C-alpha cells in the first residue's frame, strides 16, 4: 500500500491512503474470489488498514492535552475480531478513565470521528467510562457482547488493561448466565424473523439462521460456557468438527465480501442475480482457474456451509439450559425426566450415551441396535442429541456401517422412526451425521440439492423432511390461530386431511414413500418419480419389505405427481376423474396419495399450498373416492382381455394360466388391485382345492357348506382374516357375527364374488380384548370357530349367545346419525346401498342379517370405519335383479330398526 504524503492536507492524505488500500484489497479479492479464504484475507486486510488509519490519526490528534492520558481507543465487535467486511461499520470504543467526564473530551473525540468519516469510513463510535463497562446495561446486552471482542488500538494501555484483565473478566464471571440467556433470546428472536429456517430463495447471509451472525453467536457462547465451566471448576470439552466449521465460515465470509462489493453497500442479501454472478465466478469453491458452475450447484455449496453453521449454533443453544438451569429455557426444548434406555438415556430433553459397561465392553455408540433405538427415541419423544452423543457417533460410522444388519429387523427400527410424531427431527439428525445414508444410501444424491426455479424454497433433502413434518402435524388438532396472530385458514383442511391420515392402517408406508419420493432428482433423468421408485426397490430388498407393502410404496412414489397433474384439469369432469382413478389401485392408495400431495405441495414453500389449492385437492379426493366406490361393481375382470393385473398372477404359475383366468373371471377389478398377485394366487389355490374336494357334492347344501377355508393374519393393531368359499346365503352375515361374538371390532372389510360363485371376503379387525395377541394357542380355535359357524357345525346364534356383552358400552365421543341411501343408477345391475351409522360392535352383523332377511344378495361389500363412524357400502341384487323402490323402502325401515336395536 502506498503511503501518499505531500502538499495535500493531512486528512486528504489519509483518505487517499485509505482509499488506495481499499482498492488494492478489492482488486486482490476479485482476482482470487474463487478461493474459499479470499474473504477471510480481505476482511483481515481491511481491519489492518483501518488500524493503520486509526494509529496515524492518533499520532496526529492524540497530542491533544486532554487525550494524553486516561483515554484508550479500543476496537470492538467485528473490528475487534479483525473481521471488517468491505462496507461494515467501524466499531470503536473511546474508553475513559472514571475520573474523566465525557464532556471534557467531546471536542477532541468529535474531531477524531470527523476525520474517520472524512477518510470514507463509516464509524460507530461509543464513548464510555470504565465503570460503565463493568456492568450489563439493561436493554443493551449487545454492547457487552461487542466488548467481548475487544482489541487495543491506541491511547492509554494501562487503562485498556484494566478493562481487558479486570473489569470485563469480572463482569463475565458475574453475569455470564444472564448474558447467555439474553444471547439465546436475541438469537431465537432473530431466527424467528426468518421462520427458523436457513432455506430462503434469497437468503440474508448475515442474519438468517446459519448466517455469519450465528458464527459470532457460536464464538460468544463458547466463551461464556467456558467461563461457566471454570466457575464450577469443570473442564469444558470441545464439541463438533472445528475444521468443518472454519471451512463454512470462510465460505460465508467470502460470499459476504462479494455481496458488499457487488451491491456497493452493506447489503447481505444473496439475491437471485447475485447467485448467478457468484456461480459465474465459482465464488469460494476453491476452483483453480475459475471454472464457471451452474447456479444450483453453487447454491448447493452455500446451503451445505450454512447448514454447518446452523447446526453448530443449534447445538450450542441447546447447551444453554444446562448452564443456566432455568425454566426460561423451556421454549428451547421439552424437558424430560431422566429416561433410561438400553445404552443411552434422556436427560433434560437430550440424549446421552451411557459409558461402556467396562473397559473391555463395546461402546454403545458402535452398536447399530442402540443407535437406531436412539433415533427412535428422538422420533417418539422429540428429544435432541447431546453434543457428546454426536461426538461419539461421528467416529462410530465405519463400525456401524460394518455391523448394520439388514432385513426385517432394520425395517422394524426404521418403521418406529418413521411413525414417531417427531420423525422429521430424527431423520434430520440422522442425515446430519450420515447415519440416514448408511440405511438409505439413495438419499446421498439429494443432499442439499437445489431446485432453482424461484419456487422450491428448500433443498430436496430438507423438502423431504418438511414433508414428513407436515404429515405428522396432521395428527395434531389444528391450532385455530397461527403464531403471528392470524387465523389459521388451513384448520379445516388440516382437520379433513388429518382424518384421512388417522384411517391409514399402515401410515409408515406413506412416510417411507415420502422419504423416497424425490430421491430420483439426484440422478439426471427425465422422470424423477420413476427413478425414485426404481431406487426405492433396492431399499425394499434390503429391508425385506413384503411384496404388498413394497407395492404400495412403489405405487405412491411413481404416482406422487398424478394428483397435482390432475388438479390442472377440470376436476369436476367425469372423464378427468376416470383417468385419474385408473392410476389409483385402491381407496387406501387414494388416501395416501391425497395426503402425499397435500404435504408435498405444502413442503415446496410456506405459501405454496393456498386454501384454493387445498380445496381443489379435497374436491378431487372425494370425487375420486366416490367414483371408486360407485364403479366397483361394473368394473369387472374379463379374463380374455389382456390385463397387466391378470398377467402378474398368471406369471406365478404359467402352466395353470387357463385355470387362473377362469377363477378371476367376473371378480371386480378392485379385488385384483387391492391384493398382491401372491395373495390372489393363494386364494386361487384354496378355491381350486375347495372345488375339487367338493366336486361330488357341490350341488348339495352340505357340499356348499363344507366348501370354505380361512386365512388368518394376526398383526397389531389390525389383524385380517380372509375366507374363500362357495357362495351361500348369509355368508357375510355369519362371518360378521362370528367375529363380533369373539369381540373383534371390524374396521374394514370387502366381499367379492366371481362368475363361478367363489366368494373372497376379507375382514380387518381390532382384537379389542387382545385374545389372539396374548394367546397364540387360541389362533387355531378362533379359525375353527369361524369355520364351524360358516359350515353350520356350530349355529351362529349359539356362538353369539355364548359371548353375551359384558357390562355397559362406553358412551360415544361423537354421535353419528344413521343415514341410509339407495342408488339405483351407480351400477348397471346392482342397487347401491350406503349405510352411515355409529360404529358399534355387531353393526355389520345387524345390517347384513337384515339384508339377507330381504333375500338380497351382497354382490360387493366395502366396509370402512372413520373414527366412530361406520361407512358401509353394499351392491345388492335380489333374485339377480336390482331392488325395486318398494323393496328398498322396506329394507330401509328394517335397517333403521335393526341398527337402533343393535346400538342399545
Amino acid at each position, binding site marked *: 500500500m502506498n503511503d501518499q504524503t505531500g502538499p495535500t492536507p493531512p486528512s486528504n492524505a489519509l483518505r487517499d491512503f485509505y482509499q488506495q488500500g481499499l482498492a488494492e484489497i478489492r482488486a486482490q479479492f476479485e482476482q482470487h474470489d474463487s478461493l474459499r479464504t479470499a474473504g477471510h484475507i480481505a476482511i483481515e486486510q481491511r481491519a489492518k488498514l483501518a488500524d493503520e488509519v486509526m494509529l496515524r490519526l492518533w499520532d496526529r490528534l492524540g497530542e491533544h492535552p486532554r487525550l494524553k492520558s486516561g483515554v484508550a481507543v479500543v476496537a470492538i465487535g467485528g473490528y475487534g475480531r479483525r473481521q471488517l467486511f468491505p462496507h461494515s461499520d467501524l466499531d470503536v470504543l473511546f474508553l475513559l478513565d472514571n475520573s474523566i467526564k465525557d464532556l471534557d473530551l467531546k471536542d477532541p473525540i468529535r474531531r477524531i470521528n470527523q476525520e474517520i468519516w472524512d477518510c470514507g469510513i463509516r464509524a460507530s463510535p461509543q464513548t464510555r467510562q470504565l465503570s460503565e463497562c463493568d456492568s450489563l446495561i439493561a436493554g443493551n446486552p449487545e454492547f457487552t457482547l461487542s466488548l467481548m471482542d475487544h482489541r487495543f488500538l491506541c491511547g492509554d494501555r494501562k487503562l485498556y488493561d484494566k478493562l481487558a484483565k479486570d473489569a470485563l473478566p469480572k463482569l463475565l464471571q458475574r453475569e455470564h448466565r444472564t448474558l447467555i440467556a439474553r444471547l439465546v433470546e436475541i438469537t431465537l428472536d432473530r431466527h424467528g424473523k426468518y421462520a427458523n429456517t436457513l432455506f430462503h430463495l434469497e437468503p440474508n447471509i448475515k442474519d438468517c439462521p446459519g448466517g455469519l451472525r450465528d458464527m459470532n453467536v457460536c464464538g460468544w457462547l463458547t466463551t461464556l460456557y467456558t467461563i461457566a465451566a471454570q466457575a464450577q471448576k469443570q473442564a469444558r470439552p470441545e464439541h463438533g468438527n472445528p475444521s468443518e466449521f472454519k471451512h463454512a465460515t470462510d465460505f460465508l465470509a467470502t460470499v459476504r465480501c462479494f455481496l458488499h462489493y457487488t451491491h456497493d453497500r452493506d447489503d447481505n442479501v444473496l439475491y437471485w442475480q447475485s447467485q448467478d454472478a457468484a456461480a459465474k465466478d465459482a465464488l469460494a469453491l476453491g476452483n483453480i482457474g475459475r471454472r464457471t458452475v451452474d447456479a444450483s450447484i453453487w447454491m448447493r455449496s452455500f446451503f451445505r456451509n450454512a447448514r454447518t453453521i446452523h447446526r453448530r449454533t443449534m447445538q450450542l443453544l441447546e447447551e444453554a439450559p444446562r448452564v443456566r438451569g432455568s425454566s426460561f429455557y423451556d421454549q428451547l426444548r421439552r424437558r424430560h425426566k431422566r429416561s433410561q434406555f438400553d445404552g443411552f438415556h434422556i436427560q433434560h430433553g437430550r440424549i446421552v450415551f451411557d459409558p461402556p459397561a467396562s473397559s473391555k465392553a463395546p461402546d454403545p455408540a458402535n452398536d447399530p441396535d442402540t443407535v437406531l433405538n436412539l433415533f427412535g427415541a428422538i422420533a417418539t419423544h422429540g428429544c435432541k442429541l447431546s453434543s457428546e452423543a454426536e461426538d461419539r457417533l461421528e467416529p462410530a460410522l465405519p463400525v456401524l456401517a460394518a455391523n448394520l444388519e439388514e432385513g426385517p429387523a432394520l425395517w422394524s427400527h426404521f418403521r418406529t422412526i418413521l411413525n414417531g410424531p417427531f420423525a422429521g427431527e430424527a431423520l434430520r439428525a440422522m442425515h446430519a451425521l450420515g447415519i440416514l445414508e448408511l440405511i438409505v444410501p439413495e438419499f446421498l444424491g439429494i443432499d442439499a440439492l437445489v431446485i432453482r426455479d424461484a419456487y422450491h424454497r428448500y433443498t430436496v433433502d430438507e423438502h423431504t423432511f418438511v414433508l414428513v413434518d407436515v404429515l405428522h402435524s396432521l395428527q395434531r388438532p389444528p391450532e385455530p390461530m397461527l403464531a403471528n396472530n392470524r387465523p389459521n385458514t388451513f384448520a379445516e383442511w388440516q382437520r379433513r386431511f388429518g382424518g384421512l391420515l388417522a384411517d391409514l392402517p399402515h401410515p409408515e408406508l406413506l412416510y417411507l414413500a415420502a422419504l423416497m419420493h424425490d430421491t430420483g432428482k439426484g440422478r439426471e433423468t427425465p422422470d424423477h418419480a420413476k427413478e425414485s421408485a426404481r431406487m426405492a426397490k433396492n431399499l425394499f430388498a434390503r429391508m425385506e419389505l413384503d411384496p404388498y407393502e413394497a407395492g404400495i410404496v412403489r405405487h405412491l412414489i411413481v404416482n406422487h405427481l398424478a394428483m397435482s397433474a390432475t388438479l390442472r384439469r*377440470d*376436476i369436476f369432469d367425469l372423464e378427468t376423474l376416470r383417468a385419474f382413478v385408473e392410476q389409483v389401485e385402491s381407496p387406501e392408495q387414494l388416501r395416501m396419495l391425497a395426503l402425499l400431495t397435500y404435504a408435498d405441495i405444502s413442503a415446496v414453500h410456506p405459501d405454496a399450498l393456498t386454501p*384454493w*389449492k387445498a*380445496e381443489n385437492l379435497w*374436491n378431487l379426493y372425494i*370425487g375420486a373416492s366416490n367414483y371408486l366406490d360407485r364403479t366397483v361393481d361394473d368394473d369387472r375382470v374379463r379374463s380374455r382381455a389382456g390385463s397387466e393385473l391378470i398377467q402378474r398372477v398368471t406369471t406365478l404359475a404359467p402352466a395353470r394360466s387357463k385355470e387362473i383366468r377362469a377363477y378371476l373371471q367376473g371378480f371386480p377389478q378392485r379385488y385384483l388391485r387391492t391384493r398382491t398377485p401372491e395373495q390372489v394366487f393363494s386364494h386361487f389355490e384354496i378355491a381350486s382345492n375347495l372345488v375339487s374336494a367338493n366336486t361330488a357334492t357341490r350341488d348339495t347344501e352340505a357340499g356348499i357348506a363344507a366348501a370354505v377355508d380361512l386365512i388368518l393374519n394376526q398383526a397389531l393393531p389390525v389383524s385380517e382374516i380372509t375366507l374363500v368359499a362357495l357362495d351361500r346365503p348369509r355368508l357375510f352375515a355369519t362371518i360378521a357375527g362370528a367375529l363380533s361374538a369373539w369381540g373383534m371390532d371390524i374396521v374394514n372389510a370387502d366381499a367379492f364374488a366371481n362368475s363361478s360363485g367363489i366368494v373372497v371376503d376379507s375382514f380387518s379387525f381390532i382384537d379389542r380384548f387382545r385374545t389372539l395377541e396374548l394367546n397364540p394357542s387360541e389362533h387355531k380355535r378362533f379359525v375353527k370357530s369361524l369355520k364351524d359357524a360358516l359350515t353350520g357345525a356350530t349355529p351362529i346364534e349359539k356362538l353369539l349367545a355364548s359371548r353375551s356383552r359384558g357390562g355397559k358400552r362406553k358412551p360415544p365421543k361423537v354421535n353419528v346419525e344413521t343415514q341410509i*341411501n339407495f342408488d339405483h343408477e351407480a351400477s348397471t345391475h346392482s342397487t347401491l346401498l350406503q349405510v*352411515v351409522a355409529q360404529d358399534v360392535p355387531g353393526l355389520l352383523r345387524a345390517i347384513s342379517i337384515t339384508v339377507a332377511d330381504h333375500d338380497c344378495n351382497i354382490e360387493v361389500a366395502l366396509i370402512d370405519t372413520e373414527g366412530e363412524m361406520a*361407512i358401509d357400502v353394499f351392491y345388492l341384487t335380489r333374485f339377480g335383479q336390482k331392488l325395486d323402490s318398494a323393496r328398498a323402502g322396506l329394507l330401509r325401515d328394517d335397517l333403521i330398526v335393526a341398527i337402533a336395536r343393535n346400538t342399545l
Partner: protein
Amino acid sequence: MQKIEAIIQPSKLDAVKEALIEVGIQGITILEARGHGRQKGHTETYRGREYSVDLLPKLKLEMIVTDDMVDEVINTIANAARSGKIGDGKIFVSRIDNAIRIRNDERGDNAI
C-alpha cells in the same frame, strides 16, 4: 392502454398462457379465484357428509396491453380458453389512465 381481466377454467391456464406468450404478452398477473356465473355449483356427498361446491375454482388473469393489442389478446384468450361448455369464463376490458414502472419511473406504454 387497457386492462384485460379474464376469468377462466384452471385447466385452461397452460393453453392460455402459451397462446398469450405467442402473441407477445409477457406480463400476466394470475390470481386464484372462486365463483360462478350461470354454471352453478353442486353438492358432493362423501362419507355421509355433504360438501357443497357452490363456488367453483377459477383463475383470474390480469394484463395491461396497448390499445392496438386489445382485440388480438381478447381473441387469443377466448380461443384458448373455450371448451364450449358452461363455465368457460368471461373477459372484461377497461381503460387505464397511466402505468408507471417503479424501478426507473418509465410511464405510459413503455412501462407495460
